[in-house]
């Protein structure tokens, strides 16, 4: 008995498993790629909904930059390659990244303003045999991984819940895809548009008229860095004291100090604290009397400049207590100080940047897509697409009843078709697939192909009286040849989309393929089995 009806048993097991996946609390979710809080799970099921059905914003864009592959750095590993390329291209050293592999390295430049020709010739003048054809648009997977991590941090730091960031690739090109529910498109764009590189620069007056050689170029767009150029005012010097966010070990939330200014308390890492203190000592920041800061107010003095993406966002002199701890060297053991900004919202932005880190390369928003759906509209879509699906099922039912006029054939057919969709929904909940409209279209497609195949089975078996199990078996096998062949073509037709990952169509393709597989392997054999039970004696 059980051996004869194992197909029905299998269907029941899968339906039960799907029910557990859909309704059991705490299950589901799966791996939502880099989701900060997981995707929003709403309603009574474990199903997750994508942008189309929950509302919010999505931005998809590539990172700007170029990659040169097969740079033969040899065993010395191209130690000074970064500096050479950076100075050749006139970009910051943080914008050049050398990734050594076995023997040869991959070199990336993180800027949208460098041409392939310029990059190739910079590598050539650094002594490497690189042609323009070795340089390609786009950046490595590792860089994208970093960017995804930074963006996830940025989103969670700024208090947006349920956001998800992931790398998607489409035809060999990578994109970062950022999705945040309940968020306005332009606000999200503002949050991710900037690279958010934060540097701390020591700015100070030097004796005499000549700028010492250790000084760096001017900072900020108003270029009030090196005073020697304009002839008036004191001669000043810029030295990078902290090159990036990586120098910070701990960043606290924005607070107000005694005078009511918004401040961000920070702690330096052990590695960063020592060289920082040494620089402070060398350039006179350890003298409590050097506390005036004239940056932007006539120039001169001793200032620490907070520079974000090349813009000076804040300048201040060193507090006498802090200067004393630089002088005594105590700062190395307790590298805590406060940085600030002009107003509370800027301080908040600074805090997010410090905490989340900087994007390795800027997002090229001009080459991507963006999407926004008002949450209430998405909610409406959710309900209406459910109704649309039900109406489609109703239409199928009417057609089936008109054709067969036999509830014993038609009712199991409908139930089987529906169980196929139910199992598929369970699958979606299990892997944490955020459902979008394209998936709904896929579900309806599955109902369509599913019922088609059940019609083939029914017609084959019903062609004349089924008297014995043997006749049944041979008919069922014949029907199955057609179903299997049709299923194989559907899978083949959909697989380019599932593999090429044409963004939004990928979900549709995956649902259709999985649906067809569930149908062929589980539900459709079970329907044959049901018919046999109903039409024969065993």
């Amino acid at each position, binding site marked *: 008995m059980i051996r004869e009806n194992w197909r029905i048993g299998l269907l029941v097991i899968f339906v039960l498993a799907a029910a557990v996946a859909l309704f059991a609390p705490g299950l589901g979710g799966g791996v939502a790629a880099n989701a900060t809080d997981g995707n929003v799970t709403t309603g009574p099921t474990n199903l997750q909904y994508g942008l189309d059905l929950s509302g919010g914003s999505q931005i998809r864009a590539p990172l700007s930059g170029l990659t040169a592959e097969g740079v033969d750095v040899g065993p010395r590993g191209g130690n000074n390659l970064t500096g050479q390329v950076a100075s050749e291209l006139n970009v910051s050293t943080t914008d050049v990244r050398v990734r050594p592999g076995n023997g040869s390295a991959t070199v990336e430049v993180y800027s949208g303003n460098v041409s392939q020709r310029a990059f190739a010739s910079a590598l050539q003048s650094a002594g490497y045999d690189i042609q323009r054809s070795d340089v390609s648009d786009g950046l490595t997977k590792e860089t994208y991984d970093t960017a995804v991590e930074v963006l996830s941090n940025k989103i969670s730091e700024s208090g947006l819940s349920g956001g998800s960031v992931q790398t998607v690739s489409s035809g060999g090109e990578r994109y970062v895809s950022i999705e945040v529910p309940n968020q306005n498109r332009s606000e999200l*764009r503002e949050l991710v548009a900037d690279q958010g590189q934060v540097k701390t620069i020591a700015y100070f007056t030097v004796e005499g008229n000549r700028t010492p050689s250790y000084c760096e170029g001017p900072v900020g767009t108003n270029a009030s860095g090196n005073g020697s150029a304009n002839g008036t005012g004191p001669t000043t010097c810029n030295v990078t004291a902290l090159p990036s966010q990586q120098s910070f070990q701990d960043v606290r939330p924005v607070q107000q100090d005694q005078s009511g200014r918004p401040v961000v308390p920070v702690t330096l890492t052990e590695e960063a604290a020592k060289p920082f203190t040494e620089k402070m000592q060398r350039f006179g920041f350890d003298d409590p009397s050097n506390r005036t800061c004239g940056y932007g107010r006539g120039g001169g003095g001793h200032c620490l400049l907070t520079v974000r993406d090349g813009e000076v966002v804040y300048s201040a002199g060193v507090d006498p207590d802090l200067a004393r701890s630089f002088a005594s060297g105590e700062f190395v053991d307790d590298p805590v100080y406060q940085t600030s900004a002009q107003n509370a919202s800027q301080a908040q932005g600074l805090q997010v940047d410090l905490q989340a880190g900087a994007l390795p390369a800027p997002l090229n928003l001009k080459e991507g*897509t963006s999407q926004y*759906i008002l949450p209430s509209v998405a909610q409406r879509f959710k309900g209406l697409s459910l109704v649309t699906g039900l109406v489609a099922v109703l239409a199928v039912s009417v057609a089936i009843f008109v054709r067969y006029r036999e509830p014993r054939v038609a009712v199991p057919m409908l139930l089987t078709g529906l169980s196929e969709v139910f199992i598929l929904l369970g699958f979606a909940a299990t892997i944490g697939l955020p459902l979008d409209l394209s998936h709904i279209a896929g579900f309806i497609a599955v109902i369509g192909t599913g019922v*088609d195949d059940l019609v083939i089975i029914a017609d084959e078996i019903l062609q004349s009286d089924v008297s014995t199990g043997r006749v049944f078996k041979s008919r069922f096998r014949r029907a199955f040849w057609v179903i299997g062949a049709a299923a194989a073509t559907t899978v083949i037709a*959909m697989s*380019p989309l599932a593999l090429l990952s044409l963004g939004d169509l990928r979900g549709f393709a995956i649902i259709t393929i999985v649906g067809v597989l569930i149908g062929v392997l589980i539900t459709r054999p079970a329907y044959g089995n049901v018919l046999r039970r109903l039409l024969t004696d065993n």
Partner: protein
Amino acid sequence: MAALDVPAVDYTDYTDRQLAAIPLAVLVLALAVLGGWFLMTGAPVTPGIEFTGGTELQVTTGAGQAQIQDSFAALPAVDGQPTVTPTAGGNTFIVTTQSTDTDALTSAAESAGYTVESVQETSASFGSDVQQLGVLGLAAAFVGMALLVFVLFRSLVPSVAVILSAFSDIVVPLALMNLFGIELSLGTVAALLMLIGYSVDSDILLNNHVLKRRGDFYESTYRARRTGVTMTLTSMSAMAVMAVVASKYVFNIPLLSQVGVVLVMGLAVDLMNTYLLNVSLLRWYKFEGIAR
């Protein structure tokens, strides 16, 4: 069983040429439409903004169409002014433009007091990448299907019959899309791919009945036709209902309605191709092709 039973067409009344003439004429006509479209517009079909790049806003407002047009008039015109299309409720309008200055568009809409329901922006470069991939995906799907069909039937004429009717099932809806003003979008590409799967179903069924089973050609064809027509009509009823229910006159879910419309067209064409073109090729193969 009267209502949905297939009409008892007597295939013996018609020659193979007569049977094949209609679907082939339709196919040639469709190719002519696509060719003409290509000469006139530079592309065989009209790509939507997902492929050309541009912005689509959906706004609700009590204002009229002309008034909405005016509120975007101040923006710098890129490739002409935005087009404004009304939808179902009368209060919702779709604003489409080739411009990707989406911030300017949304702020224009907001300052005019409209509620922005959705915004979709695609850059031109992303769009052309997607378009390339779409064409590639469609071609790969078709070639994969064709290879599989050859493997399944291992003889030329029946395989060609299946592949030719699948080809026509895609080309004729494409031409109809041009005539009805439906743009090529991600949704319609999905529907065309689905058509490959759907259309091959009934062809495989027919070939299987005629080639792999004993019995008279007409008897086999009749059985296959009865099952196949049921299948196609069932799918068509589901898709037709989806197309109507999701259309802009009822629920206004464009993606679902596009998929539905294209599939209804494709399945209707498939009925014609399977039971005129495929049958005639199979009959020729069965009675003359094998004999030679």
